[in-house]
């Protein structure tokens, strides 16, 4: 087996123990928070509270609950949802994870297209108006939080112009604003990264060679320079995409999108242990997987990196 491939496989298998550690730490950590899922403003009768705790096994010693949880988890049963007893964690994930993933992919597209485009424009003529203008815009996008940008865009396009729906995830139009709001921040990072590494690459000998061979400026910039400047962008994008496709609390709340980002925060607040654990594990899994894919891609683009 070639060493690159073996290394990739080992890294893939390492994900399993990391997941287990994250799950275990989370399991015990969430239990240290005072209160429980059946503490409400209107107090349950002691009988009802005791019954609910018993029904969901919350009255058992923590290590028993842990072993049971792990056992069920390995059998694909992610557990109940206390506050919404009609649903199981499996059902909610099946309903909502694809929605967050779709939003994340659109946002990634925005980040890539806008980010790479702006980065290349800025790097094409460094220290000119087009460079400063683009980078200033990128700085604004980084500083402008989505909970400000989202409502502003909704105010303009949803309320003033009445072009789009301000809530829901039904029509193609419902995808536009959330994807832009979620993706723009990352687009700005991608733009800065692209510009930086393009400027570095542009100064190298092979670019001069490419020009000397008679390649046009566009071809030199987009084929020779960009390809070699992509490493840092991919390294940045891997965890970013993982974050984007696992949902955003702020964007999903502002635009009323039924994804898992909102659920994550609600689960933490209302002591939904199984839901919280599943989402944490899912997020960890996606993060590790994308990091892995990123590493593999970088190795393929630049085999030297894999050997180091």
């Amino acid at each position: 087996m070639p060493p690159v491939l073996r290394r990739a496989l080992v890294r893939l298998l390492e994900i399993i123990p990391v997941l287990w550690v994250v799950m275990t730490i989370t399991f015990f950590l969430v239990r240290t928070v005072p209160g429980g899922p059946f503490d409400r403003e209107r107090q349950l009768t002691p009988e009802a509270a005791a019954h609910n705790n018993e029904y969901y096994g919350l009255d058992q010693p923590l290590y028993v609950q842990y072993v049971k949880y792990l056992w069920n988890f390995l059998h694909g049963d992610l557990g109940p949802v206390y506050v919404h007893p009609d649903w199981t964690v499996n059902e909610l994930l099946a309903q909502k994870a694809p929605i967050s993933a779709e939003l994340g992919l659109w946002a990634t597209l925005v980040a890539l297209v806008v980010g790479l485009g702006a980065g290349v424009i800025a790097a094409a003529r460094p220290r000119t108006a087009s460079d400063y203008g683009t980078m200033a815009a990128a700085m604004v996008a980084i500083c402008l939080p989505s909970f400000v940008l989202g409502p502003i865009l909704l105010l303009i396009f949803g309320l003033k112009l009445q072009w789009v729906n301000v809530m829901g995830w039904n029509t193609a139009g419902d995808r536009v604003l959330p994807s832009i709001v979620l993706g723009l921040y990352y687009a700005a990072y991608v733009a800065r990264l692209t510009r930086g590494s393009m400027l570095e690459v542009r100064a190298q000998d092979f670019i001069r060679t490419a020009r000397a061979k008679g390649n046009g400026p566009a071809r030199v910039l987009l084929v020779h320079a960009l390809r070699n400047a992509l490493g840092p962008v991919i390294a940045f994008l891997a965890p970013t995409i993982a974050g984007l496709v696992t949902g955003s609390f702020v964007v999903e709340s502002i635009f009323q999108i039924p994804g898992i980002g909102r659920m994550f925060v609600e689960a933490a607040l209302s002591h939904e242990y199984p839901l919280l654990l599943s989402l944490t594990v899912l997020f960890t899994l996606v993060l590790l997987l994308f990091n892995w894919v990123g590493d593999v891609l970088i190795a393929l683009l630049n085999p030297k990196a894999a050997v180091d």
Partner: protein
Amino acid sequence: MSAHLSRARILAMIGILAGALALAGCGARETPVSVANREGILLAGNGGDPSSLDPQIIETLNDSRISMALFEGLTIPDPVTLEPRPGVAKSWEYDDKTMTWTFHLRAEAKWSNGDPVTAGDFVFSFQRILTPALGADYANMLYAIKNAQAFNEGSLKDFTKVGVKALDDHTLQIQLEHPTGYFLELCYHQTFLPVHPPTIKKFDAMTRRDSGWDKAGSLVGNGPFVLTKYVLGDVVEVMKNPNYWDAAHVRLNGIRFFPIADVNAEERAFRNGALHLTSTLPSPRIAAYRDSHSPFLRIMPVYGTYFYTINTRTAKGALSDARVRMAMNLAIDRQALVDHVTRGGELPAYALTPPSAQYTPQAQLHEDVAEARRLLAEAGYPDGKGTPPIELLYNTSDRHRAVAETLQESWKKNLGLDVRLSNVATPAWMDRRHNADYDIIRAGWYADYLDPSTFLELFSSDNEMEQSGWKNADYDKFILAARKETDPAKRLDDFQQAEAILMAEVPFIPLYYYTTIFLIRPEVRGYENNLMDEHIYQNIYLDPAATAPEPQK
């Protein structure tokens, strides 16, 4: 490198963004509301997600709004006065001596699958909600029924001993534990709604709260609407039930309940033409709507009180003295609080029970700073000297903080009391409330039914809700007498006496009576104000011709 390229790129990107938005816009957009007006569908913001659609499991007002569309009890509330009107029961009579209600069910009442609604269905439903293994949070609403409490607590195993009996398919007899002046009002509460026995059995849901029988496609109800869609975080959709006995009078074709927990998002959705009515309005926006005399704003007084509970057992001796508690009560300005801080049209509360047509407390606080200072001095703390710092605990929220800071300031200025604010997340606040781990704590109570007992029971010694530690034998005596009293006038008098004792001892600080503030479009007709915020949908219809200027942009 040509400048041409970069400019072209910029233009292309702007083009993509604008194109995407234009595509979404596609000329004049028809709002969801105008589509819904045409289709006869009400679009309602409904706060957060429903905890469940099983009426025996649900907890919140938002949940019960959906239940009212899907199920119907023996009685239904009058849309304005909330007096009980015939529902599944077409008539009833009461026998004073045996404390027994006999309900005559209408023969034409049907479940949404066509089965007849029988007296036996109600017996089955009451048995289910009272079965200890179901762990229904609100089962104690049925304790007015004979032996219901014993059965629910597990000391009685035989349900036939509980005072519910089906004499035949259309005659239901309910024997009470003690005279309950508001029993017919209870009958339209969600806990008294019937569930469909064959469905419950099919899903093995007798004692399982997570059986999923109440999802679209499986839920069978007997209300004016049937469930057609239920997606968490998205929508609960109900459509007209052709099998409903009074379907001829149901004018809406359907209702979509949108669970929008973010209050700002809900207001935006209203202004975007996506909702006919909201469940609430963010408090910072109330003033703008009020000042512009918006035709959409609705302020509805409801049967609920916002108050602070004082821990009379606290180690910090001062609060166990009624004079200190009274001083704190008299040294604040509630009118200013509702006018300048909460700003939602609330009424200042000078007693525990909110005013209603039936009962308004005679004992009322009279704010008086000089008297407050005198009482504090008399208790041995002139100008607040010698009192330890008092902690005021609330669950984290801007509104609670604003109220707490205002009062902290008043107590400092008027009495020289050092009150320190602390806030924790809601579950921790709950925990400390139950364990009486506080000096003064933010509290509040919305009535479960329209009767003063729902408030006054809070401070009886056998109530586990308010852990103020305050106990008063005379108070308990009047509460107990009211529970047993059959004469409505005497019963209200018992409440007056009890409330007078409470207002003399003040183990709490009443602040204001709640209002529900929301936005509603003029097309929605028949959505009446009432103290319980209960709305039966038979009464509501859409009149697309009724227009008002569009919501401010």
